[in-house]
């Protein structure tokens, strides 16, 4: 990365850190959501963009984190920061349990398993009423913590992006990308493909878990429908596809672009949301499968670390 880019990034981060001092409540909330989407999109990129194993149910980890955090706060009185970290841990645990059977096989097994996982979790969350409040949901004690949650959410977004940077520039990342390009060849080269896929998957669940917990604290109320919506997964995927899957800054770019559009324009056409997302997904796959950054990288021979 050039010095100018690093300097710009530093200035941006400082500006974002100082933002709460001047922000309105609404502005703070908007930025907080943007951070959430960056963290979610980047996490999806970590597993699907780098290894080529597409996850259709990544919101399951968001919901897992939300419920873990909610239950720990309500039933055990934990501090929300610690409870959200615990949410990240249980999400990682869930990823391990699901990834173990589903990532051993090549092909679409993983994708469709993830599609089912989200449905299954939502049903189970409604079923175990004693723990989760079932369909009535779970109300968290009131607390105004927008400021701290802003920093926590931003911290997760930065951490996941830094993690992806670290992975892409490491041997681990090279292994993942080899799996994506040709898994059989990767195996022939002696890469323990199952193990590295599983590592990537477990890592990709931590961010959504923490973010889910923070979001639960922020909203103060969770119910099965609100924390396991498939549209969240769809949004993550579209953000990454637009920005460029398998790149470091693509998900950040995609999340910023799509979230801005969503706030400014699409919020007026809420009933057309999924149709638009579906159309964007089809168009990106057919016309620009590498996304904006991927296309620029190919055209101008940019390095892998963008």
């Amino acid at each position: 990365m050039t010095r100018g880019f690093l300097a710009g990034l530093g200035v941006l981060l400082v500006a974002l850190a100082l933002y709460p001092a001047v922000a309105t409540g609404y502005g703070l909330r908007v930025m907080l959501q943007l951070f959430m989407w960056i963290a979610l999109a980047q996490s999806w990129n970590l597993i699907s963009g780098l290894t080529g194993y597409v996850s259709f149910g990544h919101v399951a980890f968001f919901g897992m984190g939300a419920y873990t955090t909610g239950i720990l706060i309500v039933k055990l009185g934990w501090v929300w920061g610690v409870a959200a970290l615990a949410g990240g841990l249980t999400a990682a645990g869930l990823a391990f349990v699901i990834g173990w059977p589903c990532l051993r096989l090549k092909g679409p097994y993983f994708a469709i398993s993830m599609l089912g996982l989200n449905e299954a979790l939502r049903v189970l969350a409604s079923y175990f009423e004693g723990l989760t409040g079932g369909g009535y949901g779970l109300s968290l004690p009131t607390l105004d913590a927008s400021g701290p949650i802003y920093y926590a959410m931003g911290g997760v977004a930065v951490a996941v992006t830094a993690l992806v940077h670290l992975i892409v520039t490491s041997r681990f990342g090279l292994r993942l990308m080899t799996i994506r390009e040709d898994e059989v060849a990767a195996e022939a080269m002696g890469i323990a493909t199952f193990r590295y896929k599983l590592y990537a998957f477990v890592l990709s669940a931590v961010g959504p878990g923490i973010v889910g917990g923070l979001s639960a604290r922020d909203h103060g109320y969770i119910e099965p429908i609100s924390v396991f919506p498939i549209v969240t997964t769809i949004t993550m995927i579209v953000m990454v596809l637009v920005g460029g899957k398998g790149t470091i800054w693509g998900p950040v770019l995609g999340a910023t672009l799509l979230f801005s559009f969503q706030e400014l324009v699409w919020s007026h056409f809420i009933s057309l949301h999924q149709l638009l997302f579906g159309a964007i997904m089809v168009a990106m796959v057919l016309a620009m499968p590498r996304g904006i950054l991927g296309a620029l990288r190919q055209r101008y021979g940019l390095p892998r670390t963008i």
Partner: protein
Amino acid sequence: MNLVITPTMIGQVVISGLLAGSLYALVALGLGLIFGIMRVLNVAHGPILMLGAYTTYWLFSTVELDPYLSLLVSMPLMFVLGVLLQKLFVRHVVDAPGLSSLLLTFGVAIAIVNIAQLAFTSNLRSVESLTGSFALGPFAFSKARVVACGFAVGITAAAFLFLQKTRLGKAMRAVSQNREIAQVCGINVQRIHMLAFGIASALAAAGGSLVAVMVAIQPGMGQVYTVKSFVVIVLGGVGHYPGALVGGLLLGLVEQLSSLFLTTQVNEAVAYIVLVLVLLLRPTGLFPGRSQ
């Protein structure tokens, strides 16, 4: 929750399971056909089923067409839609890495669901045509389910006869076994792909028309069937078409048996647990096919 389980209850559950399973087999056969021939997992299979169900509802509520006669409309309609999907979109990603076709059909799936929401609203619809049940000894059979099972068995049998006996069916199986060699033998692979997509979508539509009489119709009803059909394929063994039949019946049985102990509310979770267990214990399916 039931604490006492009598043999009659088990008999009843087995019958219900087989009745439900025949429908799963019908729908899964379509998904398996596309997957076997193109190696594309069509995530939009369930939403196409949903469109089939709406076709039946729409014909029933406007011109009071018998739901079972509406099969004659929904199946050709979805056949055309399937052919178009293949021709316009899927054709371009058949040989692309797995990610592309999954993402593409996923995009198509969510677009279809949204269009259905706009066209039909999200209100629950129902087709009240065949209610009540037959009684036979201690067992009761829902009329709608028995008739649906009959149609499912008939259509599935017809599809198998087509695959086994006709030249076109043989060509499809040839493409499924080895595309290059089939092409060298003079089979038009693109045409077979379109045909397969059309037939698969017609099978999904048949499933949709048949369940329309039994369950609430709403735009989001389809996705469950994509997952369940996939469970059936995995159970039966990928690329092993008769396996889909056994897989379908098995899934129906397991779901109904579990309803003895749990509420039917957790049905979806049951199918999912079956999937994870099979992948864990017997990833080649119960009846390993030729491929994978």
